[in-house]
């Protein structure tokens, strides 16, 4: 018995922050879904498991349901049954779809937040129990595992499916406990909710398949569905099939050894090329674009021109590597001048004060000096004001805390130190 596992497709959305030159059709999660369908058919899978958030709440009507229904019907036409649980995004969508489709095509488990076991037996005699729980509403603050009371024949393999937040007890999205998961059913669980793929393997495994189409720069690395075999009453270990057309990657470039602008250009371009080759080697044939976020670090004599030069190098850069392209989405500059920070901080000058602040902020500590604490608190307050202002009301509200303030103070301190030391250098 062969299973294809996926979730968090978020139909109706597309990969973001990708240059306009890339075919937008190839960036849609709906297109990714159809590739998954093709994969399942090609692999002669028996079941396709969906772990929730298949449709995106923001586009949960037709543009999600249309492709989803088409794909499920196509799978059914090829003898593949789709089994799903609903997530916080599609808790109000999947039940309706399940009502429209025959259960041998599409089986929604755990409706209304009630655990359900689905026993499947193939003609070859292979048996699999799939147990699932679906979001009954958008927010679920208690652990669904508390209500798990299913029993099955222990000799038969069991796969659990649930959408929820692992090891985050205060999460409003069905908080789940890893140890508890391992203790329930056969301990093999397909989860949904987190978009970064994660396979936790002990005696049994817990899998976040991740979004099969990487949707934003936070979703780095390979993305795609997973595939596994159930044979002789045993569930195998899932293997990821990279299927995303986009690969987001963060790349750090240490410029400590760089002292000339042309060296900067070489190292940045070489790194991009090297990263691109590595990714395209690792990715499947579906990959058409790699989006890089570059973090420049280190102490360098040219810190005052690093940002501008790097942006000039990468602005509108679009390299063709193997069968795809690669571009730089953002450059973050964390470089500082090549000075002895400790010695500098002893000076009573403004630059000395910045160096001292930088040293203090860079230390991972809970308590700062009174002056720095005060600065952080004021920064928190001002950032909070900005956060609460109408300007950014359309963005997801961040939790403005000490850590966030520290981050921005670090960034601005590095820039200010570079600028002030530049003044001395003329």
């Amino acid at each position: 018995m062969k299973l294809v596992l996926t979730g968090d497709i978020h139909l109706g959305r597309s990969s973001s922050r990708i240059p306009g030159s890339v075919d937008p059709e190839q960036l849609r999660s709906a297109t990714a879904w159809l590739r998954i369908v093709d994969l399942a058919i090609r692999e002669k899978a028996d079941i396709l498991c969906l772990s929730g958030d298949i449709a995106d709440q923001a586009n949960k009507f037709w543009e999600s349901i249309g492709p989803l229904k088409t794909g499920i019907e196509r799978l059914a036409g090829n003898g593949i049954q789709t089994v799903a649980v609903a997530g916080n995004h599609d808790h109000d969508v999947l039940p309706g779809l399940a009502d429209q489709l025959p259960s041998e095509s599409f089986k929604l488990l755990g409706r209304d937040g009630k655990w359900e076991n689905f026993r499947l037996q193939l003609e070859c005699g292979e048996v699999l129990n799939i147990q699932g729980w679906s979001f009954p509403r958008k927010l679920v603050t208690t652990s669904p595992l508390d209500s798990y009371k299913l029993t099955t024949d222990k000799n038969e393999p069991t796969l659990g499916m649930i959408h929820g937040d692992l090891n985050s007890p205060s999460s409003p999205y069905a908080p789940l406990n890893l140890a508890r998961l391992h203790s329930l059913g056969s301990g093999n669980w397909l989860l949904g909710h987190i978009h970064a793929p994660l396979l936790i393997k002990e005696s049994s495994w817990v899998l976040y398949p991740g979004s099969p189409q990487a949707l934003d720069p936070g979703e780095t690395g390979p993305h795609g569905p997973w595939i596994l075999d159930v044979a002789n009453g045993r569930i195998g270990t899932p293997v990821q099939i990279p299927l995303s057309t986009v690969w987001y990657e963060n790349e750090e470039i240490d410029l400590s050894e760089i002292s000339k602008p042309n060296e900067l250009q070489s190292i940045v371009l070489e790194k991009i090329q090297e990263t691109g080759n590595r990714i395209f080697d690792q990715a499947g044939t579906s990959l058409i674009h790699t989006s890089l976020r570059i973090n420049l670090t280190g102490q360098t004599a040219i810190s005052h021109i690093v940002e501008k030069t790097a942006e000039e190098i990468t602005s509108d850069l679009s390299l063709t590597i193997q069968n795809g392209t690669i571009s730089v989405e953002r450059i973050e500059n964390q470089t500082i001048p090549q000075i002895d920070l400790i010695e500098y901080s002893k000076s009573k000058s403004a630059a000395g004060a910045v160096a001292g602040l930088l040293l203090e902020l860079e230390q991972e500590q809970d308590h700062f000096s009174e002056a720095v604490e005060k600065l952080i608190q004021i920064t928190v307050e001002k950032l909070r004001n900005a956060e609460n202002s109408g300007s950014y009301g359309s963005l997801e509200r961040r939790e403005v805390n000490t850590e966030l303030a520290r981050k921005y103070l670090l960034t601005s301190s590095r820039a200010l130190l570079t600028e002030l030391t530049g003044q001395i250098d003329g």
Partner: protein
Amino acid sequence: MDNKAVFFKEIEIHNALGITPGDGFELSEISPGVNLIFGPNGSGKSTTALVIQELLWPGKTGIPKPTVSARFSVSDLVWSVKIDAGHTETENMQHSGSTPNIGPVENRSRYLLALHELINSENTDFARVITAESQGGFDLDAAKEKLKFSTPTRKPSKVLKKARDAHDKVKEARAVQERIARKEQLLPDLRRKRQKASDAERKISILNQAEEFQSAANQCTVISDQIALYPDEIALLSGSEEQNLQKLADKQKDLEKKINAARQNQSLSNRTLAKLNLPDELIQDDTLAVVRGLQKNLLSREKAIDEQTRISLYSQSETDTAKDRIGPNLSLEQLSAFDTVIIEDMSMLARQSDLFHGEEIALAEKKRLLSGVESENLPDYRSEQIRDGIASLKQWLKTPDPAEKKQPTSRIPFITAASILVLLAVVLGLIYTPEWFLLILPAVLLFIWEIPKRIDKENKNEKSIHASSYRKTMLPAPTSWENGSVIDLLESLVDLAEAKAQENRLALILRDLAKDEQTLENRKTELDQQRKQIEEKMGFTVAMDIQWLPLLVQNIGRWQKHSAALSASKNVLLSLESEKQLLLKTLTEKMIHFGYSEILSAEQADQATQDLSKRLEEYHSSVQMRETTDVTITEVQLEIESIQSERLAIFAKVGLDPTQTSTLEEWSRQLPDFLLLQKELTKKEAIRKNRQERLAGNEELLNLDPEEISVQIRELEEEADKRDDITEKITVISRSIETAQAGHILSDALSLEDQALSDLADLKEQHSVSIAGDLLIDWIREVAIDRARPLVFKRACELVSEFTNGHLKLIIDDRSNPPQFKATVNGSHARPVPELSTGERVQLLIAIRAAFLEQNEPVRLPLLLDEALGTSDDLRAGLIIEAVVKIAESGRQVFYFTAQHDEIAKWVTKLTSTGTPYTLIDLGDLRKLQVATFLPLEVTHSQPVTILSPAGMTHEEYGRALKVGNINPHADNQDRLHLWHLISDDILLQQFLTYKIEEWGQLKTLIEHGGEKLVNAEPEEIEKIYTAARAVEAACAGWRVGRGKTVNRRVLQDSGCVSESFMESVSDLSNSLNGSAAGIILGLKNRVIPRWLTTKTDELQNYLENNGYLSPDSVLSSQEIRIRVLASVAEAVSKQLIDASLIERIVGSLPL
């Protein structure tokens, strides 16, 4: 700084400014502490102050020739200064001559603080000094500008607009989807309605059938009654009876005509047969064919006989011709004896004889042609001899005469000769034999000869040599050895050489002809031998010349061929004749039976056959006609009988006899109506039956009242009519769903929104860095630059704080040019000195001056204050006095000049309370001025500030007694917050209040400068107050979520969006709405202020949003605020620095 200080002990003023000699006075009991010098205007206060400075810096104050003196001490030394009309003498009691170092005169102004000066001065010089010392070599402003560190005050309009537009598009797309979703929800209802409509249609159909059933049943009854009126027999009629009878009658007439015609034909046939008189028994089907076959065979035999006869005649003719040509020498037997071998041998001999004969003729022709060529009589010279002669002559001609050697033209004849020779050689060679080409050689030699000759011509004449060579050839000599003669001779020799060559060739040809003649002779002999051999084979001799042999052979072959043909032809003729006779006999036998005589030829046979054919054709035709008419007659008779039977049957079928024609006609006339009724009845019965079947299960409808059915149908039709509309609606919705499912409109809109939000997030990130950077710059200024501030500034800050009890905080604005002092009042925004109240300004500047006095002065000099309290209120005056007292207590002598009684009173009160040494000098009294010019000084102690004791009151009661106001959550900070809200310990609170420290901002400033010692507050108490203040700020921040800050006139001004002309009305609007930003914007949008520009509303809205006056969020509940407060002071709670009751009180104090 050491403890050195100047203390005036005595001062005498004899002549200075308005004080004239004799009008002078002496200040004798001067206090080392504070000297209060009271006097009305013009009493000499300012002069006294100036004199004191003149005594310290003689000649530097600008007083013209003063006469003044004084005694003062510096440390333990007492100095005496005498200035007499500007001449200065300084001495001390112990030493004379050396003037104490009191610092540069430039510092003089620092020690004289006049009210008007303090009011008008901003002390920028001091500020500049402080700033200069604070700079650390870095330009923070430049760095800030370059890094764009600032707190954004305006909305990122473009990016925000893009995000909003994108969001609008998402909303728009989603609205479409939601509309479709809403419509989809209508589908079940629509489908239900469509089902209902369909049901109605079906029911109508059933009712229609019931209606039709009833109608059909009724009609059946009526029709049945009508049918019953007809005779029963009519039902037996088919309706075609009349017509059938008529048809039968007509048919019978036709048959009778037909039978008559047949009988006439029968008679005619019989007559024709009789006339033909042919024996029926001999007439067979193939009779005519047999006769015709015989006739054709006969004709072909006759034609063959004719052909063979022609062939025989031709062969005979050819045989005879050949025999004639062969001649009589050969008999017919001999001719027949020639066999093929002999003929072939003779043919061969004949062909060879022909060839021989041709060659013989050709040879004879050659001989004939050569016989015409006559040989010339040429001189008997050898060809070689002639050739050598020609060569010598040519050489001779080539060789130029010695006389002509310099004339290049002398070469022409040689070249011409050579050219002619070459031309001649080519022509002759081509025409005759190639040997003539040899003539080219002499030409070449001629050229070769010419060249060396030309070379050697300078040394010798070669002509004689060539002439000698010619003479050796023995050829005839030229007529003379001149060019013309020699050329003539050369031409004749060339002609001779040509003739000689011609002669040689002819001789060669004749030699070849002789050889050919001999060859032909040999061939003739060979041919004769071959002939003899053939004749031996034949056995006889052919007497003719051999040249005729081929013709003989040809004729023998011809004779043999035609002779054989003739013989064969004769044999065929005999056979054909025999066959012809047999055919004639057979034909005659056949034809004689049909009346014909003997047949003798094919032509006769043909005529007889054609005649017989015509007769037989007529015979057969007649016989066939007779047979046909017989059959016709029989058949027609039978048909007539059948017609009569049918007629009888028609009548019999309806029970009539053939005579009742009229009855039948009457019934037939009625029949159509009868049948129509019957058909209608059948139809209606069928309908009735069909509807009855269809209504199975609805039998109750069979008997339903038709009216009722109609009513029901009408009712149902209304429902059924909706079906198409409903179906259309369902189709439209289904199509919308299908289109939406296949589309990407919302997906694309979301992508665009993602992009726009990404841009906005990037901008937010930049702004966040910028905000942090802005704060960082300020922090650096505060921490680093302030850290690097000179001590004088720190001292000034301390003094300002002391003077104002923390109310004012001194700062210095490095960024303004020139740098300037500013002050924050209770922590509010910094204001420059001119914007401070007069009292605050005096407080601030005294502090600054005092601080500077202490810096780098070699000795502390007296401080001169000229009505420094000025317009200060009691509290502020008290604070200034306290400050000055402190200055005095620090070891500096103070002179305070004033004309205000109340000021003196304040001073005295304070100085008395502190025990500071002081002297009160009444200049009016001292100078014995007229009473009218001043009021005598009456010193009355002012009442100390008394603060209500909290004794016996709860904290709340104490607050009410103090008339403490509520927390103002709109405020940017809580510096104006009454301390009652922060301090639960009422005794401690009373202590602060006693020192007029009522507000949190005051206390904060005081504490920052170590002022907490004023009330001996424990550090833990101070920490509790700070904690409570944080709690209040968190509560207010929570309260402001969703509310925004209060808008007042100042905010409106700061916004820059409200012009002066509208300021009053907008400010009134704000006041009427309690500063609600949302209300103001709504009011402006609703145009409550006439002529207000809409665009300004947007600008103002942007400003208010960006600065926290308008909030997009929901208002927090008390519980939510409480949680936030707890979170903000969580650590302090755990340390028991704040208790729940205080938090509850703070939250409860917030307005609803």
